[in-house]
């Protein structure tokens, strides 16, 4: 892990990213670099532009200004906008993951858990049922889902299980970068704790770079190395997670931090 964190080449670079809808600027001049194995939390309240930023970073939304670059497996850093659609989609099925807040958006609800996990493998040409199933079983175990449920559709799963299944589905191809949009939102507190712990372990074990959008500062503290605080589409404060949360500088960040109920 030490080597990865000290890798001197960023994996993802945002360069003055902006997005406006008419006169409304959802995201203004956001720049940062994300390194392999690094977890960056984007915090802020609803409407602060954090979800828009996530969509810009993951190439799902075209920016009005600025660029996103990603270092491909061949070591060449390329502008996402210059990638062909086939390349971008391949990236999304292999090197990248995206964990949605609502698992129904990230899963095929009518298809068995095993096939949900196996889909990305089949998409990159795995053609051996036994091996696909073995890999799916392995991943279900890693996300603490009973392998006996492998043939059940996620419709029959609880909210926490669905979210864990979505994570397995994303991680099966060994991605380098995972985007997460409020992954613990909408879950019970006890279920949240379990999921956070699991995420934390997996992120460390797999040396994942993560961009996680959350309004929950406790999630940011537990998972992230670095925090970006957004307000009105702008990044108003950024730094080490514990630094920003323990020694917030900006008025808005101080307000956010002081709004947390003591544990």
């Amino acid at each position: 892990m030490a080597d990865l964190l000290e890798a001197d080449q960023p994996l993802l670079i945002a360069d003055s990213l902006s997005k406006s809808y008419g006169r409304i600027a959802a995201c203004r001049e956001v720049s940062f670099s994300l390194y392999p194995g690094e977890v960056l939390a984007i915090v802020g309240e609803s409407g602060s532009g954090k979800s828009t930023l996530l969509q810009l970073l993951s190439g799902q939304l075209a920016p009005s200004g600025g660029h996103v670059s990603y270092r491909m497996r061949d070591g060449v850093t390329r502008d996402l906008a210059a990638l062909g659609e086939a390349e971008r989609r391949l990236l999304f099925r292999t090197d990248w993951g995206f964990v949605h807040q609502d698992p129904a958006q990230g899963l095929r609800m009518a298809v068995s858990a095993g096939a949900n996990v196996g889909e990305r493998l089949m998409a990159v040409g795995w053609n051996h049922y036994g091996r696909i199933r073995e890999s799916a079983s392995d991943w279900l175990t890693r996300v603490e889902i009973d392998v006996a449920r492998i043939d059940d559709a996620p419709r029959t799963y609880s909210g926490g299980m669905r979210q864990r299944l979505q994570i397995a589905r994303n991680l099966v191809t060994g991605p380098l970068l995972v985007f997460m949009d409020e992954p613990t939102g909408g879950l019970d507190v006890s279920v949240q704790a379990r999921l956070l712990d699991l995420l934390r372990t997996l992120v460390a074990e797999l040396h994942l770079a993560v961009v996680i959008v959350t309004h929950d500062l406790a999630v940011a503290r537990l998972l992230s190395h670095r925090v970006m605080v957004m307000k009105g589409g702008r990044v108003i404060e950024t730094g080490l997670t514990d630094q920003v949360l323990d020694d917030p500088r900006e008025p808005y960040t101080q307000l956010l931090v002081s709004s947390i109920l003591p544990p």
Partner: protein
Amino acid sequence: MNAPAYNFAYLDEQTKRMIRRAILKAIAIPGYQVPFASREMPMPYGWGTGGVQVTAAILGPQDVLKVIDQGSDDTTNAISIRKFFAKTAGVGTTTATDQATVIQTRHRIPEAALHENQVLVYQVPIPEPLRFLEPRETETRRMHALAEYGLMHVKLYEDIARFGHIATAYAYPVKVNARYVMDPSPTPKFDNPKMDNCPALQLFGAGREKRIYAIPPYTQVVSLDFEDHPFEPYRFNAPCALCGAENSYLDEIVTDDRGSRMFVCSDTDYCEGRQAAGHHGALSAAPYKDKAQGDANG
């Protein structure tokens, strides 16, 4: 022409040209679904409006037409389409596979080997093989464009997970010319191997869905599968009860209200041909063995 109120083969010439252009494009890109401006036909959707338009566009006065429905020449659908073209185009019709130049079919490929001077026209209800897993047409088109076919294997995976083997028995997905994944219309997977390297031209028309696609002669057609669960054509336990054929596709016929049944060739022409040549099955003395000739009267 014996039906002067209609243009030859019912459709006007401009429409036929439009359909022919779509067919040519379909032949040029094997397995690719070409959109076309499907017309209203004097029959309901689901009765072969796509196949009929394709047939209308390719028929010439010298053609001999055969129409089958589930392999049979004498079902309502087959007979009415055959009569339709006999009336509007005045072409000759036949039930004999080897004498036909155009064969329109619903759900079967004839047992007799096709040859180079034949065109097989399939009636297709749903042309999109990815539809049931990905309902968005915009997305499935993109998947075809980028040859992203992992999803097709998800369906086969589900089959094995649920039934222990690939249980898809009809509309079994194929890859055409190593590029496009195609739905071979609801033919039984028994017929899939006949599509591969077939000397005849195969055209597919979906009227409601407004799509035409094609397999040119001698084109590679591979049924999708897994390495450890290879494609297996369906096999029957018994030979045809009428003609004794051991390698044809059989229909199950219930013969009384006490559960008795018999299995007979679904391809009536093939079965009758064999019986005429002296082949016999276990029940070939059945009372309805009388042979229908030409345009059977129902």
